[in-house]
């Protein structure tokens, strides 16, 4: 009995003193407990000014101008850029070869990124919309979300339309997603349809120039792109609406083509190399590292080497020794190259040729020949020649000219500073031209806009146009702007043969839904045909 008493005492004591508190407050993560409204930090609402939209618009950077997701899937599938396998380098399980040859499947990493990045943007928009935004902010976020859905619908066709955080939805048809994007954009523009005489005074979007945010012209630009490809997406052409949307921007907006007198200091100018120009003019200035106030850019993804990383064209395309040309921070990766035929399609005096490509023998920071002592061919000078021996397995390391449209700066870090246009006036010209020509079934209708761009590129005007020559013009103007895949599809040329690509399966116009997503969706997602 005495022992029992002692046991009871002891256990009572133990339990009395024992702590069973398992509450864990996360010290190094932000949870609902944090009072974000204090100290000038806004929870995506009201008082932070533009700050409220930082989070959703920051999502635009992922995959847009890097070697992943949106850029890779929309560029390497085209007839202008490839990623060659250089021996052991850049094989990567064949994903780059698959993009070039259109043999991609449902476990392709780049395709997965296209999906995940878009939904990351949509998720962020939904989170943002559930906070207290003002009418203009709400309209911007809805337009941004519509743009992310455009990327999904364009790439995958049938996707889930999720409009509030965490709420599931069935997989919609491509038509349904198209309708959703259209209605969202029309709604924020305050109109029920795009017409030749529409009045946007009821729009919650404004008309102020703000490169990294969406105004009425940016929303119209997305809408114009949607209508231009409507036939591809839904089977029903919407040429006129594409034309009117583009025309409204051209007629009413303050934006101008960056032509004569439009220039920026050349940040790649090497002090001791006289042949490096002091400034970049016209077309080249639109994409320069210091392009943030360019009058041609309506809406851009903001990139900055310090606070807004994600653009790494320098790393993607340059051969290692090119580091020494500009004193780059990090040795480049030598991946992306330009196809010979595409490069050769440029006229020699086309200013865009110089602006778009890095070619020929290279020099170092002092202007001396740039040597590669590990060269395969005994020729030590790095020389980006248009000719490439093969796609795989042993492509020349310095074969192929390189992408330079988004040009480099001295001492550039791994992340670049150039802003990446999502909507720019040059493209709007081409959208109007093509929509008008197709609506009227006369390609010559496109001549004024095309010649305006040719003029800016230092070329003589064309006297006539065909579908093929229009597409070629568009390809030159829009190089490296993630437009080639959808352009080829719209012109029925995505199944053509080029370089080492022979696939002609029309199912490849739409990417496969990532297998991991189908597996994770409990049957709510089904695969696209042909995969």
């Amino acid at each position, binding site marked *: 009995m005495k022992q029992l008493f002692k046991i009871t005492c002891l256990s009572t004591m133990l339990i009395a003193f*024992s702590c069973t508190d398992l509450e864990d407050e996360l010290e190094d993560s932000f949870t609902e407990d944090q009072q974000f409204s204090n100290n000038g930090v806004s929870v995506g609402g009201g008082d932070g000014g533009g700050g409220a*939209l930082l989070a959703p618009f920051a999502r635009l950077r992922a995959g847009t101008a890097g070697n992943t997701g949106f850029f890779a899937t929309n560029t390497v599938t085209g007839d202008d850029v490839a990623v060659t396998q*250089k021996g052991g380098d850049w094989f*990567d399980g064949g994903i780059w070869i698959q993009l070039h040859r259109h043999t991609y499947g449902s476990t392709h990493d780049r395709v997965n990124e296209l999906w995940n990045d878009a939904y990351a943007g949509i*998720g962020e928009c939904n989170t943002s919309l559930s906070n207290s935004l003002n009418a203009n902010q709400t309209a911007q976020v809805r337009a941004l979300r519509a743009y992310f859905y455009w990327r999904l619908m364009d790439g995958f066709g049938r996707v889930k339309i999720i409009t509030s955080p*965490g709420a*599931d939805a069935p997989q919609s048809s491509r038509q349904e997603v198209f309708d959703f994007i259209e209605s969202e954009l029309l709604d924020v523009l305050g109109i029920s349809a795009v017409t030749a005489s529409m009045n946007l005074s009821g729009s919650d979007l404004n008309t102020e120039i703000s490169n990294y945010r969406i105004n009425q012209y940016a929303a119209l630009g997305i809408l114009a792109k949607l209508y231009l490809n409507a036939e591809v997406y839904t089977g029903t052409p919407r040429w006129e609406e594409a034309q009117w949307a583009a025309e409204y921007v051209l007629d009413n907006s303050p934006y101008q083509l960056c032509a004569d007198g439009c220039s920026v200091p050349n940040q790649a100018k090497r002090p001791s190399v006289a042949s490096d120009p002091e400034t970049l003019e016209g077309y080249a200035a639109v994409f320069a590292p210091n392009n943030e106030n360019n009058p041609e850019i309506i809406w851009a993804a903001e990139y900055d080497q310090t606070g*807004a990383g994600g653009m790494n064209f320098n790393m993607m395309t340059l051969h*290692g020794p090119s580091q020494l040309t500009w004193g780059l921070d990090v040795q480049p990766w030598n991946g992306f190259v330009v196809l010979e035929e595409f490069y050769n399609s440029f006229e020699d005096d086309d200013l865009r040729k110089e602006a778009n490509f890095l070619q020929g023998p290279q020099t170092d920071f002092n202007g001396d020949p740039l040597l590669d002592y590990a060269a395969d061919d005994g020729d030590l000078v790095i020389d980006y020649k248009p000719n490439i021996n093969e796609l795989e*397995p042993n492509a020349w390391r310095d074969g192929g000219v390189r992408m330079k449209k988004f040009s480099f700066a001295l001492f550039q870090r791994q992340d670049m500073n150039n802003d990446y246009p999502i909507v720019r006036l040059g493209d709007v010209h081409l959208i109007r031209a093509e929509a008008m020509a197709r609506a009227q079934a006369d390609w010559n209708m496109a001549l004024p806009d095309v010649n305006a761009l040719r003029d800016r590129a230092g070329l003589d005007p064309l006297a006539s146009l065909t579908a093929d020559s229009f597409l070629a013009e568009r390809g030159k103007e829009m190089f490296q702007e993630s437009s080639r895949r959808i352009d080829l599809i719209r012109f029925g040329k995505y199944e053509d043969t080029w370089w080492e690509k022979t696939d002609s399966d029309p199912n490849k116009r739409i990417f496969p839904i990532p297998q991991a997503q189908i597996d994770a969706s409990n049957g709510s997602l089904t695969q696209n045909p042909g995969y």
Partner: protein
Amino acid sequence: MKITFLKNLLMLGAFLCFGIIQAQEVSGTVSDASGPLPGASVVIKGTTNGTQTDFDGNYTLSDVQDGDILSFSYIGYKGQDVTVSGQSTIDVVLEEDAQALEEVVIVGYGSQQKKEITTAVTSVSSEDFNQGTVNDPTQLLQGKVAGLTIVNKGGDPNTNGTVRLRGISTIGGNQEPLVVIDGVLGGSLNNVDPNDIENITVLKDGSAAAIYGTRGSAGVILITTKSGKVGQPMQLTYNGQFATSSIANQIDIMNADEFLAAGGNDLGSDTDWIDEVTQTGYSHVHNIAAVGGTNDVSYRVSGNFRKLDGILYNTGFKQLNARTNLTARLFDDKLKIDFNSALTRRDSKYGLNEALRYAITYNPTAPVFGKDAPFPFSSGQYGGFFETLGLFDSFNPASIARQSENDGTTNTINYSMNFNYRLTDNLAANVNFATQNIKNNRSQYYPTTALYLGNAVSPTTRGLANFLTQETKFDLFEGFATYNNTIGDNISFTLTGGYSFQETDFNNVFFQLGDFPPGIQFDFRNNIESSQDLTEAGRIVANSDRRDGDRIVAFFGRLNATFDDAIYLNASLRREGSSRFGSENQWGLFPAVAVGADLNKYLDLNNVNLLKARLGYGVTGAIPPEVGLFATTYALNPGTSGQDGSSTGQGNRAPNADLKWEEKAELNFGIEFATERLSATLDLYTRNIDDFISLVNVDAALFGGISQRYENAGQLKTNGLEFTANYDAVKNDKFSYNTGLIFSTYKTTLEKNPQGDQVIANLGAPGQNNTSVILVREGEEVGQIWGPVFTGEVNEAGTPQLEDVNGDGTVVTDQGKALDDDVDFAVLGKGLPDFELGWTNQITFGNWDVNAFFRGAFGHSLVNTFRAFYEPIIGSQSSYNFMNTKYARSDIKTAQFSSYYVEKADFFRLDNLSVGYNWNIDSDHVKDIRLSLSGQNLFTITGYSGTDPEPVLQDFGDNNSANGEIVITDGAVDTGTANPLAPGIDRRNSYFTQRTFTLGLNINF
């Protein structure tokens, strides 16, 4: 320690029985080989008249008559009877009883008689430990415990081995067994010097470990350190070791001539790069310990010093460790207080393993120094070293090894106090308090002249310094009570109940800056104010983490019962909560029950000393690898300019509020058998892991683009068998030969995987990204290496031809189709061994002893990534060296993963051979001296062409954080996340294996 404890119990018992009876008086001294034995019991046989010896081993017993038999006894010694025939002085010398010594085994929250153990428990004493230079306590056990696998590939002295008990115990949770040091759980093994360890006990099965709950899910390693004895005069021992290490094996590469013949780029020199970056490592270890005790206090104090060189140039560590174990007794020995403390400071030079990696792939015709370049080369910019500028992933290994610094200091402090109070003879209460603090300061410096990460090629931004401070604070409070009694004659039982509270607080701070003034030879880590990064936005990388209040709280109870001194029952129940779960799922209940029977008691077989059967079942749990996975988090997006303010967005991980305990149920059946000379143990087990916690693909549309989160995801089953045998082949006074064998095998099957089939474990750059080589398929074995099969044919372009495995006429070997029905992939090998063997041989001959220990693993394969990347003679890679193994073919000119790069890696190794000689001096100052010579890793029989055929149990991916080492590159701190589902990949970050010879000197004063 336990012996001291029992001895004192006995002493106490003797006091209680003490009585005074008038008669003849006998006195004398009881001693053992090393001196007087205090507390030994002296009783007249058949009576209760007895006494015990005092502090000097003396006793006086009254009322003794002629013809009485005096019975002398002492725990751990063989008893002695002496018949009284008129003597007034009787001195006896007791002999140690080896068998009795082993009889008590430490288990969770107490100890048990060995015969009462009903679970799979293996105990290894210091005399059976591995010999030679051992820095990591787990290496003492390598190959000694069936089912315990310890892999330290290559043997980098600065990394700890991977320890696995019975294979995979969890997917996403903690894989390492729980370490309990002198009853205190959660202690760091790095704070225990191998010289201070008396015994290591391994609790292998679920029913044994269940009392430790979550923490014991991967098994439990109980370490008992050496301690003082009551009444023992102070003794001083010295242990010294002097060792040299050199490369035992490296992968074969081409020398300059072979390289040129294969079409390599000629840079005019002939350099053995491996020679340039390696060294012969000299090491010495010193241990001094003082041990002793009075009647109330016993102690052991030891100091350890280790200085070790690695085989990589400029690597190694220096370590100082001190340990104090103090036991005090109060209130007639009712209260026992243990105070243990240990502190360790280790100054490590980690070096950069990249130097080893590039030594293998660097052009063998390249000169070490720029002045020997075949063309004008501005050596000054690179610290005098040559560099092949512009070549992807190619850095002068000598420059890395000689110019860059990668250092760290780890301070570990433990102290623990244990109060044990015997309330009555049946009831005792225990309170444990322990705390541990580990502080790790790491820094790396890449000078302005280093191309590798120092960016020496840059005209403007050169030099880089990284700093990382990590601190882990751990507090433990435990209270438990033990009650024992008997029911009738045949049943005795012990009840234990208690409470445990564990809290971990972790924080780290990292920052990185660079751009130091060029042209000055200076370690700018000590002068970061010179960094130009301070003046330029966005250059400095800094981050910090904090995880406070990471808690485990548990209540536990256990019943041990013995029936008829032959049938044993152990049952335990633990209710445990963890703060890593959301409030709904915090608590789990973990039961265990085990029975055992001494069959020989009933069968009474001839010549059989022991025949015991036992059966145990236990459930343990596992918690998620991180805190807060249940909670929704937000990301903060600062504006690019100050006026923008900030906004919060969705977090960068998908929360799972429903995350719950992963449960592991294990059933173990064992048989123990012993005769005079032979002993053997057989264990069979099956374990089922349900709801294992793992990173699972989720619908990105629902989780804001995040496509993975931790979920309770599937089921894993392991069946295994372990066998241990020991045989005294020869045993006499002059010569003895003992041989022991351990054998273990297991097979793990992925029973359920809601994720569907997957291929995982990417080979990596250059060129083999998205090349996944391990198949994870429901219903199949874990660790299947998966890929195309090489036909042996190579086409004219140098591309290896792959087999049409399914014979459908088309060869589909596209990685993207790895799981399709028509793919021509096959299982190319398995990452986990079929079985593992350890074979011990001990010979004593007079004063000589010889120990030979062989170890092997069989049936596993390894993906030899060095070969997969660098063996093909790729034209565009003619500036990198090529592998030149026995498999090298000059006609293969394309790097394409296939069966050709998967090799069988069975091996059998003479792990350790040591010879020792003992001098019994017995002078006034020196009692005995022992001298020994050991060789580690003397030879290996294997067909594997890589550096080390040791199995690789998990995969850290193609980064340099192999073995969980902290690696800092590109501003990110990478501690590596190991994937246990991807064994069998020999990554390019492996250290070379080394061979070590050690001279050992042991002096007892």
